[in-house]
């Protein structure tokens, strides 16, 4: 019988420092067959583990068109991520997955797309943004609103600049510094720039729980329908496969029924937007 808890050996090909507390890990499976069969969608996650330290659920930040490797953007937050931050190129880790449902892609083709990201919430959306840019003709207007706590907390700054040449990208920080000449405030305030038609627009929202809660409220005010507001829920997860019970909310498990939900799906779900 297949054991879904059995992880596969992967090697760290590269580590890039994105901020003082966030790193980008480029990984590939040791076994070529495993790597070739590792097919994922943006919005899905893996369990990355180091024996002796445990496992952590981390969303995949690369796009499916990237071959032979995949990327995880990891903030140093807990026991496992702290260990990962002390690891280097060529070190081994263990990976299970991909898990979760992932973002809709084909379903939102020919629509305008609005991304609202807060902090490390840009990481799961990055894979989707790059995938959409690779299929640019299949989508209408694409806009990215990105907020971080301070300019130093901003991740993928080079990529934000690159995207800015092709699509509208607006950034904002909660608290600026002497070099920061841009917007200051919460990411929701950038929504005042979205005055165009919202009828054919799908919104992807990802960030800390409090940000998601308020951005959804703002989007509803702007006229977005519940089913076109797509967000992700964060929860404690251990197994990733709907068994350990930690991510249970209502009749759903965030790890298998999510982590991607439409606002319509979670609007009446108790505890969902805590």
């Amino acid at each position: 019988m297949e054991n879904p808890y059995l992880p596969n050996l992967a090697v760290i090909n590269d580590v890039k420092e994105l901020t003082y507390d966030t790193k980008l890990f480029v990984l590939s499976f040791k076994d070529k067959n495993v790597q070739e069969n590792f097919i994922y969608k943006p919005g899905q996650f893996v369990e990355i583990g180091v024996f002796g330290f445990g496992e952590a659920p981390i969303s995949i930040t690369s796009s499916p068109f990237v071959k032979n490797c995949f990327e995880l953007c990891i903030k140093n937050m807990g026991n496992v991520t702290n260990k990962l931050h002390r690891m280097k190129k060529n070190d081994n880790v263990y990976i299970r997955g991909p898990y979760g449902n992932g973002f809709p892609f084909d379903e939102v083709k020919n629509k305008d797309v609005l991304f609202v990201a807060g902090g490390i919430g840009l990481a799961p959306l990055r894979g989707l943004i790059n995938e959409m840019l690779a299929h640019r003709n299949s989508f209408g207007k694409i806009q990215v609103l990105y907020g971080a706590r301070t300019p130093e907390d901003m991740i993928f700054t080079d990529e934000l600049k690159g995207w800015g040449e092709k699509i509208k990208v607006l950034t904002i920080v909660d608290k600026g510094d002497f070099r920061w000449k841009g917007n200051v405030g919460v990411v929701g305030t950038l929504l005042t720039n979205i005055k165009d038609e919202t009828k054919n627009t799908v919104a992807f929202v990802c960030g800390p729980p409090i940000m998601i809660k308020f951005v959804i409220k703002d989007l509803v005010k702007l006229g977005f329908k519940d089913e076109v507001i797509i967000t992700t829920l964060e929860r404690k997860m251990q197994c990733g496969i709907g068994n350990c019970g930690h991510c249970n909310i209502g009749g759903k498990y965030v790890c298998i029924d999510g982590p991607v939900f439409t606002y319509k799906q979670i609007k009446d779900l108790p505890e969902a937007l805590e």
Partner: protein
Amino acid sequence: MFRKIKKENIVKIVEILMKDYDVLAPVRKEERFVFEKIKKPEEVILDYDTTILPPKKFLLPPIETMMKFDNSKIGIPENNKKTIFFGIHPCDLNAIMLLDMVEYDDYKDPYYIKKRENSIFVVVECKEAGEYCFCESMGTDVPKGYDLFLTDIGNYYFVETGSRKGEKIVKNKLFENADKNEKIERKKNFVRKVNLENLEEILKEKFDDKIWEQLGDKCLICGACSFVCPTCYCYSVKDVVGLTLKNGERNRVWDSCQLVDFARVAGGHNFRGKRSARVQQFIYHKMLYFMEKYSSFACVGCGRCIRECPVDIDITDVTKKLRCNGKCQKHFPSILGKVSDFSVGGD
């Protein structure tokens, strides 16, 4: 075809079964009973009230090794032991049927399933309703999924078979032929009852009721209710490392939604930081959420959570009070005053 076995022959059949199986059965532990792997056939006691822990503990052990690692080599522990649950109560087997729904779901749990498929279940009917039992209300007093079902009929146990495995056992000469009419149907008097009518709708409606704050003030968040529950299956994964730091094992251990850290994520945010929210989770998962996912209540009315609660929180009482529409203000007096005034783990 029905069979029966003389009570005095139970010891003999257990002795025979012990040759091929690990026999797990109720045995006495001081004033109470526990399910244990027996060493002598005489230890088995079939006339017993609810065991301290449910027999679930053999299928989902409190600590279970998922894998061992040694210099990056991973080994999965093998378990091919054949076991027989001898004298399990109907409610506890019904609970295992509920666990099956979870463990045989999309991602099949190999540890549970291996043990489950190597198990035989001999159910024994309870002669009377225990003080805390409400299985009749939950419909779990009727055994399901058994291999053999024993009913006390005086000098004999009346034996019904429910599977091929069971049929094989009753071929032994210790079993005699019996007539259908020999079975005794006992009417039991249950003190505790749960009215299931519209319970899901009531729970949905009362999600923000002040009853939950009152329960939260009373609850000591010890988690006893879920640790003794035959349908609770949540766990945490813990790695244990050897002295060389090169080898060790990955274990899963029972966890409880009642404990403060259960929904806390790295970085400190706690999605269920409020005590009342955690008490609510226990009751809602049993009586509503499990129903939404698996079309069944996740409570078999064994009453263990009521018996072990140090502050007498009673799930049957809670469901009753939910129906009393706002006249419940004086219920659930807390023995310690407002416990939430104390700072426990930051909640």
